[in-house]
């Protein structure tokens, strides 16, 4: 495991985390306003198809992006209609939207393109191309000859499509909107206690529709990135459960934007791992996972330190990330030090995990995280319940 491999893994983790992150933030807006949204998956899928279809026919990816977002918002409004206006079951509505998107995307693409439920491959301006930051190398051969810091800059930071950078910018933006604006305060209040918001003379219905539309826009970005950034065209069922993983990441992140970034990076990493190592030895897998735990623990600790310095968090909140960091460090350093001839090491490197297990890893981890082994997550109190103005 050399430095370049780790860099490449981190690079593809970031790419694969982007759609998760966008969908996760979409869910964050919706659920913070008290509307559960199982339909993230369907909205992503619809946006992926429509963005690819219109990017192909117009030759301009921005047109595709616009139409993709529009399609996602339409499905969002349908969810809003069912769960806000008609006070229906939000889970059932979300499930219906997932099936609707899964069916309609294939039916329409078959009618328009007759390619077995996929769109033609996108080229040139019809997809989001990689942006090479100033001073960065783009060819692998050039990157390999750079200094380590230059390699990080060229491989990890440079060379992503614009939506990756946008997604990363939306994290602080979400934080700012939620915690520093009047709209954000009301949005959070409507998810906790809609009756209080109503008493204050603010429209619960209006706020919830606003949240649902924001959710649609973000899901649209996520879907468009899938079809026009991550790959070049739409393929049937290409969202592959990312909408649900994003929901799990949201719970893991306890409905907070910065934590959502960390959670999505973790899932993106697992995805990248499964893609790169088809048959991985247990030993390599363990050292990689602990390396990542160090990374996440470190970032969390840094962020928490900043907020402790600003007086918004108590020092006690540092304990969790610190323990994560130390445990991760011990194992990450310990594993490569293991005597290669010892029983444990030979056993660990003799066990080769089957490729199917690697592909199921993000799903298994989702269950593990949901099982709450990582801490208690308390959802917004009014989540999932329709608001009845007068009983």
């Amino acid at each position, binding site marked *: 495991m050399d430095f370049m491999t780790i860099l490449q893994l981190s690079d593809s983790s970031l790419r694969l985390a982007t759609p998760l992150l966008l969908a996760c933030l979409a869910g964050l807006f919706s659920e913070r306003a008290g509307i559960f949204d199982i339909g993230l998956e369907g909205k992503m899928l619809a946006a992926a198809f429509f963005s690819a279809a219109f990017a192909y026919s117009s030759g301009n990816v921005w047109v595709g992006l616009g139409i993709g977002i529009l399609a996602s918002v339409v499905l969002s409004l349908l969810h809003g209609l069912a769960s806000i206006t008609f006070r229906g079951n939000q889970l059932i509505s979300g*499930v219906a939207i*997932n099936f*609707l998107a*899964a*069916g309609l995307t294939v039916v329409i693409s078959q009618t328009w393109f007759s390619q077995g439920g996929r769109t033609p491959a996108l080229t040139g301006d019809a997809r989001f191309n990689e942006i090479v930051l100033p001073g960065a190398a783009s060819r692998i051969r050039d990157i390999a000859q750079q200094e380590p810091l230059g390699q990080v800059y060229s491989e990890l930071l440079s060379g992503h499509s614009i939506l990756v950078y946008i997604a990363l910018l939306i994290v602080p933006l979400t934080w700012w909107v939620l915690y520093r604006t009047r709209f954000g305060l009301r949005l959070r209040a409507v998810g906790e206690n809609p009756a209080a918001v109503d008493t204050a003379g603010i429209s619960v219905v209006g706020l919830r529709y606003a949240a649902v539309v924001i959710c649609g826009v973000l899901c649209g970005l996520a879907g468009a990135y899938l079809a026009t950034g991550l790959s070049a065209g739409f393929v049937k069922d290409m969202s592959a459960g990312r909408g649900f993983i994003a929901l799990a990441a949201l719970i893991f992140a306890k409905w907070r934007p910065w934590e959502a970034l960390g959670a999505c990076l973790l899932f993106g990493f697992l995805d990248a791992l499964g893609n790169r190592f088809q048959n991985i030895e247990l030993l390599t897998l363990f050292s990689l996972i602990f390396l990542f735990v160090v990374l996440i623990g470190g970032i969390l600790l840094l962020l928490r330190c900043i907020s402790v310095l600003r007086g918004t968090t108590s020092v006690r909140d540092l304990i969790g990330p610190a323990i994560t960091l130390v445990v991760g460090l011990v194992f990450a350093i310990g594993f490569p030090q293991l005597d290669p001839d010892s029983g444990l090491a030979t056993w660990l490197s003799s066990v080769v995990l089957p490729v199917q297990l690697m592909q199921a890893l993000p799903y298994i981890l989702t269950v593990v995280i949901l099982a709450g082994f990582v801490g208690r997550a308390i959802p917004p109190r009014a989540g999932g319940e329709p608001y009845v103005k007068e009983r």
Partner: protein
Amino acid sequence: MDKMPKWADILLIPLISVVLALFASGLVVYFIIGENPFRAMAIMVNGAFGSAYGWGYTLFYTTNFIFTGLGVAVAFHARLFNIGGEGQAYVAGIGAAIACLLIPWPHWSLALLAVTILTSVFGAAWAAIPAYLQAKRGSHIVITTIMFNFIAASLMIYVLNNIFTIPGSAETASVRFPETTHLPNAGEFASFLGFRSSTPLNVSFFIALVAAVGVWLLIWRTRLGYEIRAFGHSETAAVYAGINPIKITMIAMLISGALCGMMAINAVQGESEQLRLDFVAGAGFVGIAVALMGRSHPVGVCFAALLFGMLYQGGAELAFEMPAVSREMILVIQALVILFTGALDNMVRMPMERLFLSFRREG
């Protein structure tokens, strides 16, 4: 509650919702695909009910959907949303293959008994983990069951590539089950109705009907069923009445998983007679629409399953006759049925309630 007569609540509203869903599907066919929706409907109905061949497939699919529909319905009674029927059926298929391939059965009835037990145990086991996590740790059962669907799909690929393989063949399927496990099909026990020996309809259809009666007895005639329904209506009230929420969550989900798993009797032992990669073919998800449409009542589930059996078989015929209409159109119809009968229920219910109220004032 008594704004409407009971028949309106049970029959009229689901009927209107389904008609609305079919109407919306017709709009999709007309405006997006550009085919005549009435002709499409005629082809589907004819393809499903026009011949013994059609009936055979329609009732075969119906059998699948009765099992999964009942499974989802039992969970619904406890207000649990089991989206994992697909995965539970996959894993149950492995159970069916184990039962058929490992033991040389002297007679199909013994094999059927073993397969029934093993599929329900495997299905229930796959539902047990999400159920436990929901009951004990409060993890969202919708997300965990969906994750278990994905995990089951991976497991299935692993099993068919590494354990149940056909020597010297690249096909991802198990070897064919021995002749003694062959279930009598409608061509053998009901040839007087015109069924051929190639029809997929087999005796497990009757097991599905027995299961429907069993679920009715369980839900409305036993103490456990009462506890499940009480828990579904109000968890706090149920707990106050001394009902153990963890026990009810577990039991309801285990029964649900077992019923979804029993779908494999029909599809694996009954039809393909080998373990194939995609034998579930969306039946677990159709179960959701079937349970919603049938109002979680076994009779309603059976009729809704018949409707979806018709859509599946008719849809296959439609794909032949009108190549522009792809098979995924069924998924769209299914989604619209779930949307209208489930999520948009109040859209139909509110105006109907007003209508009945105004009738009553006049009368």
